[in-house]
């Protein structure tokens, strides 16, 4: 008997979409997410372009759909280690890391606050810290704390051992899933800024990545959404965006990351809303605002304090508390310098699978995007396949869900 269950690898927006769309047709779906919480990249965003609406709104709908549908099974802190079998009959090995917190949305905020160690938060991308017992964000789903035992003192371990909501004995486990088809929705990671030597390699103070800027502006972020200069908390007056930080560059990402132009325009809108005196300069090669996003571009560019300069940024260096940006203006051809209080690098998206050891049967191109596999009943969705925005990822994931269903149907 062939298996009609579907495995979705990745619990970000694409994975959630693929899983739910398939489950709501009646298929059993497993979501395997490597992080402790679902939501992926969009959970880190402050707002979506072009509506400037909060991503948590759509995530809330998705999480409700997960909660209300017994056909969706969520595995967090989980990674696929091995795939064997054939379309319609796959056996998948999944490694599960211990969460050390029992099921149930227990409020462990007081227990967490009592812990001594502040650990840099992966979720805040170095902009903030967390405790050893934590939720990523107010919305975290599953709404269940996670404990990283390594960052506890001995005394704290003893105290927590007595807490009924905590299970220190939990260990790593392996699970075998039997599924008929597989959707890979492993998404993307921000390109590593340390590789961008001319742009400061992540060493120049007050130069942040666009994803870090999302955290900086998010109401749940380290500053509760207040836009400040990271080093001294000052209110920035002059802010620059450097487009194509890694993208469209053979030495880094040999493609355009699709979202960065719209993201910078969106972030310019955050700044202009919050800081009426601040000015924004966007250095770009082409402003890529396809389709009806043109309306958004025109709206943002109508603001006289938002300026777009066609030019390649040649160098970024510290200048006192500020940042000096050297630009080759493509229009005038002149090399110029300008000083800013804060610089945002529009870092590109690198597929999460780039440079990863992959289960047998998966194939990626030189940039790390999944290719092929469709004949095997393994389908890529969202940014694992192509650089896309959220709307197009949802579209891609819905299409991938249909292909997964076609694979398991009528076998």
């Amino acid at each position, binding site marked *: 008997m062939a298996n009609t269950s579907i495995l979705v690898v990745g619990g970000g927006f694409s994975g959630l*979409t693929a899983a739910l*769309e398939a489950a*709501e*047709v*009646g298929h059993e779906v497993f979501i395997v997410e490597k992080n402790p919480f679902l939501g992926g990249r969009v959970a880190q965003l402050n707002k979506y372009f072009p*509506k400037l*609406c*909060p991503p*948590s*709104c*759509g995530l809330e*709908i998705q999480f409700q*759909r997960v909660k*209300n*549908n017994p056909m969706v099974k969520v595995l967090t802190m989980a990674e696929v280690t091995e795939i064997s079998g054939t379309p319609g009959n796959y056996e998948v090995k999944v490694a599960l890391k211990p969460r050390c917190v029992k*099921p*149930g*949305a*227990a*409020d462990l905020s007081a227990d967490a606050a009592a812990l001594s160690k502040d650990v840099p938060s992966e979720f805040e991308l170095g902009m903030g810290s967390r405790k050893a017992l934590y939720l990523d964000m*107010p*919305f975290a789903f599953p709404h269940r704390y996670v404990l990283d035992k390594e960052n506890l003192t001995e005394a704290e371990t003893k105290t927590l051992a007595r807490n*009924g909501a905590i299970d220190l004995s939990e260990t790593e486990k392996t699970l075998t899933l039997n599924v008929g088809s597989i959707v890979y929705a492993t998404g993307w990671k921000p390109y590593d800024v340390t590789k961008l030597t001319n742009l400061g390699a992540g060493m120049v103070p007050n130069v942040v990545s666009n994803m870090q800027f999302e955290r900086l502006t*998010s109401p749940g972020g380290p500053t*509760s959404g207040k836009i400040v200069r990271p080093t001294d908390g000052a209110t920035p007056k002059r802010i620059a965006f450097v487009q194509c930080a890694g*993208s*469209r560059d053979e030495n880094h990402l*040999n*493609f*355009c*990351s*699709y979202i960065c132009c719209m993201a910078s325009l969106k972030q310019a809108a955050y700044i202009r809303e919050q800081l009426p005196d601040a000015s924004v300069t966007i250095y770009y090669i*082409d402003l*890529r*605002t396809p*389709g*009806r996003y*043109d309306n958004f571009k025109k709206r943002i560019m109508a603001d006289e304090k938002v300026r777009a300069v*066609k030019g390649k940024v040649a160098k970024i260096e510290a200048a006192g508390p500020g940042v000096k940006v050297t630009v080759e203006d*493509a*229009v005038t*051809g002149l090399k110029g310098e300008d000083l800013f209080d804060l610089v945002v690098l529009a870092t590109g998206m690198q597929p999460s699978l780039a440079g990863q050891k992959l289960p047998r049967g998966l194939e990626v*191109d030189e940039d790390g*995007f999944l290719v*092929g596999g469709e004949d095997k009943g393994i389908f890529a969705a969202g940014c694992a396949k*192509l*650089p*896309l925005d*959220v709307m*197009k990822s*949802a*579209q*891609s994931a*819905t*299409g991938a*869900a*249909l*292909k997964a269903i*076609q694979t398991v*149907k009528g076998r």
Partner: protein
Amino acid sequence: MPEKIGVYIDESCLGPVLQAGALAEFVKGRFGKEVSVVRSHPRLNTPDGQKLIQADIDAGDVDAVCICSTSPRYDSDIFTFTGNVLVDRVNFREFIAKGYKNPDGSVLKTGDALPEELKLMAEDYLKMGILKLTKMDHPAPEIPDGTKTILVLGGGWTGLNAALSAATAGFDVVLVEKDAQLGGKALNLYKSFPLSAPWTDTEDTGIEKLVQAVQANAKITVKLGKTLEKLDGAPGMYIATIGGEDVAVGSVVLATGWDPISTKYLEPLGYGKIKNVVTSAEFEKLAKQGLGAKRVAFIADVAVCVEAGLKEEAAKAEAELAAAEAAKDAPKEEGEEKVFVFKDLESCKHLCYSSELNSLAALKQAGYVADAGGMGLIFYDHMMVPGINERYYKAAQDKPGVMLTKGTISGIREEGGGLVLLAQDTLLGESIEVAVDMVVLPTGIVPTTAHGPVMNFTYRQGPAFPELELFNGFADSNYICFPYETRRTGVYAAGCVRQPMTMATARDDAQGAVLKAIQCISSLNRGMAVHPRSGDKSYPKFNFVRCTQCKRCTEECPFGALDDDPKGTPMPNPTRCRRCGTCMGACPERVISFDNYNVDMIGTMVKCIEVPPKIDQGGPRAIILACENDAYPALDMAAMRGTRWSPYVRIIPVRCLGSVNTIWIADAMSKGTDGVLLLGCKYGEDYQCHFVKGSELCNRRMVNVADSLKRLGVEPERVVQQQVAIDDYAEAPRIIDEFMDYILKLGPNPFKGY
């Protein structure tokens, strides 16, 4: 209706002062008849807590469960029981333990005495939770025997892909194409830009093979030379009239594609006046036949055309406005029915929206010229090749024979049998003149839905999708997260009728829309709602005896679910319904209800709230009707982040502000409640309401609320609607506190104490 309610109190969710024992005593004393079991437990959201409740269910002691614990947004996996029980939740942790602060703003700590305000608050929430269950029933869904055939409109690239995808998934398909042959615009294409990895090469479209595959598929019935004349009925039971013939279909994939923008918009670039100035579509046909031209300019910059177009459109809009003003004073006939008028939405802006396809087409067509040994010169403003197609752009740049110039075009003139292009080279900052044999102009993708209703619904609200001007005529979704949601359940758009998109994207898009169409059929055949309340089995029931045919419900339904008979009595279509309850909110006679959500239920909750007879003895009271989708989670999170709000408010979640019936407000006011705060989603152009119109309609109904309150002798200012987004967790408690300050300034409700 439940007769044996079990109340379960979670001791871990009570905060430092409340005692489970005292709460249990209160419940027993007040609800001796309705409540059969009251228990408390140290932590209910554990296997042990779950077992405690399940044991009572198994013993037949309870038929409904009221869980006083965490927010209902959490732990639903744990609070799932076997047996036919109703389950509802009282949000003790977030709204009481964590949301409560003393009237002076101080926070309770262990050992403090129980303040009267907190006692009353906890009792009010308990009462509301129990009474809510007494007004609740298991939804008994109507399960239609729906047809599973999928109607695909449009036999072009997207429609063909959709038809084939649906057939492969096992569904029967009716494919309707207005032309005499399948294939659509793709038939005229010489080649396509990349359709697959490595995304560097021009490819054959493969359209002939696709057409053959569709024709050979036994599950697909093709209807050529026909359009959808009428779509009658509802998902699962549509009757589509196609070429005079009635066909039963379950759901629809709309893939009617696009029309090229009127060439009048291209006149500023010489189209129609200068020989050898052609559109990209015309050039594609030439390319298919074999190229003659040696030097061809491709223009991807549309600034000149848009500037001229905008001027013309502004003048036209002004004239229309003046005409409308003049018509306003003309006498209207009594009882005149509104006649549907379709407003054409084609605009020069469609040129701008097509930038990606124009850039890619220029790269592709310049490649044709280069491959034929000529020179293809591309003039662009922004090379709009986002994403993976950057690779295609790079490959084109490396092609000898393709030249790219960033510049704006100022004009074209004929000279010596050829053409001279006048451009401003943006990079070099100088005017240039380029001699070419031919100039190829961009096109504008104008969705077919901008030119006509297309769907021809027989719905009361009209034959077309409503408010497509928000999307510039595209049959698109206003959700970013849910791209296939239209305002008409059961109809899912794909391809260029939804958004301008490449053929590679349209192919995926067709599959996505097909899945939604399948899902719609699958859900309705299980008696379930589709997005955003997917899985909901409740649906609105009408007590027609009391209906006065006022038509408000039929007019206000955001999804056009309700038709009406000639007398004006609403005719529900449960499979079109999204269960938002807007009809229930609209009905002045209160004849519409859901089994698990109704006017009586919320009204009873509102009325059970204890209102102290005097403001200075026990404080004011206000009711917050909070949208359960966004405002409610925002308050949950505010509480978990340590923000608290006035102890004088009671929060009642509603499905959508659109479902708020004004009687609830009147009930509250006549009981002496000092204020009602409605917390809902943003409305307007970039609305965030999950049900599109709910919060906007609620705001519009405020006029009626004001009238009825005035009749009661209550100041209408006591009712305020505020927009709260889900991430406004910092603002939401502040909005509540400011509202209470405002209410205190207004003073007590004149009805207080009666």
